[in-house]
């Protein structure tokens, strides 16, 4: 990789200041950024590490909301959320492999918004609020297509506020090589209704499946999904699956998520 300067601030304020230069980019767990730098696809002048900021780490409950610090690793979420929000803990505990889970963070995953990443499904599927150094963004407004989010230049996710559902589960079908989600579905049941978020499938990145949400809101049972389908148009086509296959997997994984949650 190219030479770069490395800064490791210990407060959000210092991190934001370090990122203001324009030549700097934030580094969280580095699970995407470091490999891309090693491949010389990315060559920042300055890397601002977010993993030394205590206020960005940890999981705590605030009423009916689980608050996860943006620099909290997947392994930590898998452990700390197991009691309050097992659906989220289950998702976090199956991202990548142990090495990835020990480094990767929820904030890094959401900011990167990889179309096959798991966390965007949890954030969108819970209607989470993404808290940054300057504002709160609703998940419905945050994800804006593959690798694109509502974050502004230099804006840092500091925590994620996820409403705790009555029941939830994540069902993921693995892409055989990367073991990212070929299609992953997060289903969460709230008093106000059910949310269904799909990752890995669409060219537009993570999305909500409105028809399934409506059907499941009136009857939270996998049978309620029979007859529903997702259009293949707009689904990802690659070595690992056709659009038709992914559209089909959306149904199968939704059904499995509901079965696991109920």
């Amino acid at each position, binding site marked *: *990789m*190219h*030479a770069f300067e490395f800064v490791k601030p210990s407060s959000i304020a210092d991190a934001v200041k370090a990122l203001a230069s324009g030549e700097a980019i934030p580094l969280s767990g580095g699970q995407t950024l470091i490999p891309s730098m090693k*491949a*010389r696809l990315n060559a920042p002048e300055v890397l601002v590490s977010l993993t030394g900021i205590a206020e960005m780490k940890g999981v705590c409950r605030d009423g009916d909301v689980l608050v996860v610090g943006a620099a909290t690793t997947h392994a930590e979420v898998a452990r700390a959320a197991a009691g309050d929000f097992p659906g989220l803990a289950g998702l976090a505990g199956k991202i990548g492999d142990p090495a990835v889970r020990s480094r990767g963070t929820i904030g890094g995953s959401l900011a990167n918004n990889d179309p096959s990443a798991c966390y965007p499904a949890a954030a969108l599927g819970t209607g989470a609020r993404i808290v940054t150094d300057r504002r709160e963004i609703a998940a419905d407004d945050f994800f804006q297509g593959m690798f694109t989010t509502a974050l502004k230049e230099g804006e840092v996710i500091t925590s994620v506020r996820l409403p705790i559902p009555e029941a939830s589960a994540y069902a993921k*079908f693995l892409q*055989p*090589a*990367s073991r*990212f989600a*070929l299609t992953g579905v997060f289903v969460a049941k709230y008093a106000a209704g059910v949310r269904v978020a799909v990752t890995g499938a669409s060219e537009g990145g993570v999305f909500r499946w409105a028809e399934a949400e409506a059907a499941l809101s009136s009857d939270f049972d996998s049978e309620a999904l029979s007859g529903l389908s997702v259009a293949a148009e707009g689904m990802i086509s*690659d*070595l*690992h*699956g*056709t659009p*038709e*296959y992914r559209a*089909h*997997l959306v149904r*199968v994984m939704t059904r499995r998520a509901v079965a696991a949650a109920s």
Partner: protein
Amino acid sequence: MPKDDGIGASVKRREDNRFLTGNGRYTDDINLRGQAYVHFLRSDVAHGRIKAIDSSAAGSMPGVLKVFTSADFASAGGIPCGWQVTDRHGQPMQEPKHPILAEGKVRHVGDPIAAVVAETYEQARDAAEAIEVDIEDLEPVIDMKAALAEGAPKVHDDLSSNLCYDWGFVEENKDAVNAAFGNAAHVVSLELTNNRLVANPMEPRVAVGDYDPWGDMHTLYTTSQNPHVIRLLMGAFVLSIPEHKLRVVAPDVGGGFGSKIYHYAEEAFCTHAAKVLKRPVKWTSSRSEAFISDAHGRDHKTKIELALDADHNFTAIRTETYANMGAYLSTFAPSIPTWLHGTLMAGNYKTPLIYVNVKAVFTNTVPVDAYRGAGRPEATFQLERLIDKAARQLGVDPIELRRRNFIQPDQFPYQTPVAVVYDTGNYDATLDKMLELADYASFDKRAEESKARGKLRGFGIAHYIEACGIAPSNLVGQLGARAGLYESATIRVNATGSISVYTGSHSHGQGHETTFAQVVAEMIGVDADSIHIHHGDTSNTPMGMGTYGSRSLAVGGSAIVKATNKVIDKARKIAAHLLEAAPEDIELKDGKFSVAGTDKSVDWSGVTLAAYVPHNYPLEDLEPGLEETAFYDPSNFTYPAGAYGCEIELDPETGKIDILRFVAADDFGNVVNPMIVEGQVHGGLAQGIGQALLENCVYDENGQLLSGSYMDYAMPRADDFRGFVVDHSCNTPCTHNPLGVKGCGEAGAIGSPPAVVNAAIDALHRAGHTHITHIDMPLTPSRVWSAMNR
């Protein structure tokens, strides 16, 4: 009972002590004083004309010693091809030049254009980015059939077309084969693809060149399966360095699977650059670079047809295969789809007439050469898939159809219609053993149980035979090999009785250091601990051909046996002198020479000491010392065979296949170390099943590699398997080598792909998806689901 460290004992691998503790000494661990680093600027287009290379800016960047282009290799030869195939019309194959650095054109993504040598690796990479290359894009040819179309762009402008050769085998049988199809009661045909694979050994390739100007000595440290072959090819054909001025060392090597047989441009580059710069020059491949510079494997498109008579006896086989050579001919590439493929098309069956046609094609892709199994997996896959299809089409049991056509035990030695003579075998025995271990008898019950859970269960079988222990030199010479395929060994007995063995074989995962010591220990009757196996250095091992084609024990082990027998013969004479008896009265047992029928004896170390301190010694009849060298050239290939059974469960909702049980019943002849053999089979199965379910090297129509990293190239992982049942109790020893051994390294990769695919098709047919007669590998969930929902 086997001696606890002799032949037949599952001795733990002595080399694992250093490997498992991180103390192996690999090529990348070698760092020489004053070492510089090279980075290759590689083409990012599949086909283009190089109009200009401007390296002036790069050359003046920090740390840069020199930027090399093809002009720096004007006096060097091209990378040679080691096998010349003669086509159907008696003409030699088309053989293009393979330059060290691209000359005039780039021909695949990854083709090296220039090389920067700098003080550090990062400086070399930085400078490579500053080289300005003006390339005129040319239309690439990626698809083999399109490459052969009239007017297709040519990979090599100086060749008449992209056809390397059009090979027919046995050409004289062609009319008889066609006639047999005309008279057949049944004809079954199948078109299939044998998917392109990337070997992906755990250790990427590395080369370190060194030059001693005072002795005019070149040394190359390299990740090779055959250092002597590299010395010969690179010294004689590329850089014009005579053998006595060139040492090639392949130290610990972390897997090869064929991809480290070949002589690569990077090796010649480092050797040459070290002399130019008077500095050691090191290259370490990144994993990304390995995907676009290591030779790939397989990549055949085949149509195969089977003719049967009314009683379902096979009467003829006819095949037409397109074999991808890639952009250049890698060292053994032409031999893989021909002599290592066509000669195996009889399989385990007594089909009397066979005609194999292979068209080898140049395309703008990475060169393709041998990969674990090399030609034999391609033959086995098409044959065993076709027989399964035939059984379904005819409505008969695939097991019974195979049994009906098996070559019978009393028919050996068996001359096949495709040149080879099988020495021994018992195919019903391995099939029976496999079915027993697989508990095939109660399969239907298990299928019902799966069905109750909404899953489809299937059982697939495949029988394979392979020709390994490569190979009789005079035979392969007639077939176009430009090298002999003997093996060598030197047994150096030291004064106090310890033994240093120097083998021409090369261990890169096979466990030679353990197995070869077991052989010598057994023969002399000394502890294996007193024996050390040396390999991988041309300066101390006799000229040997290296390790591939499951040849090391059958050929290299036989050389060791031969040399050890010479040692024993001489030691017996020394013992006879010491014991004042005739040599023919001397017996060797448990490391002790004794006079038959008496209590007079002398220990091994007493004899060895006398050989080196010859005070009481028959100097008039015998030279002092105890060291012998032998070369062994086999009289035939060996023919391991076996029956593989694969039981799968298929999720009809997702198309995902789960292997529940895999049974391998192999006939490897005699076995020296059963544990190592089992490990070899495990590794082969993992790679074969990887090909069947996961691995796929894919180019897009522009020649860009879509599967250029582990994000898209699916390697098998431990959790893809539930363990294997491996048996080698049904053995028919090889009749022509002294150990009676056959090769075991490639069997798993040869026999398993058709077993897996046959199991999947079986599951689908049992569930009523009878329209699915074949699915091309890898059987990814998406492909299986798409076939079910077509």
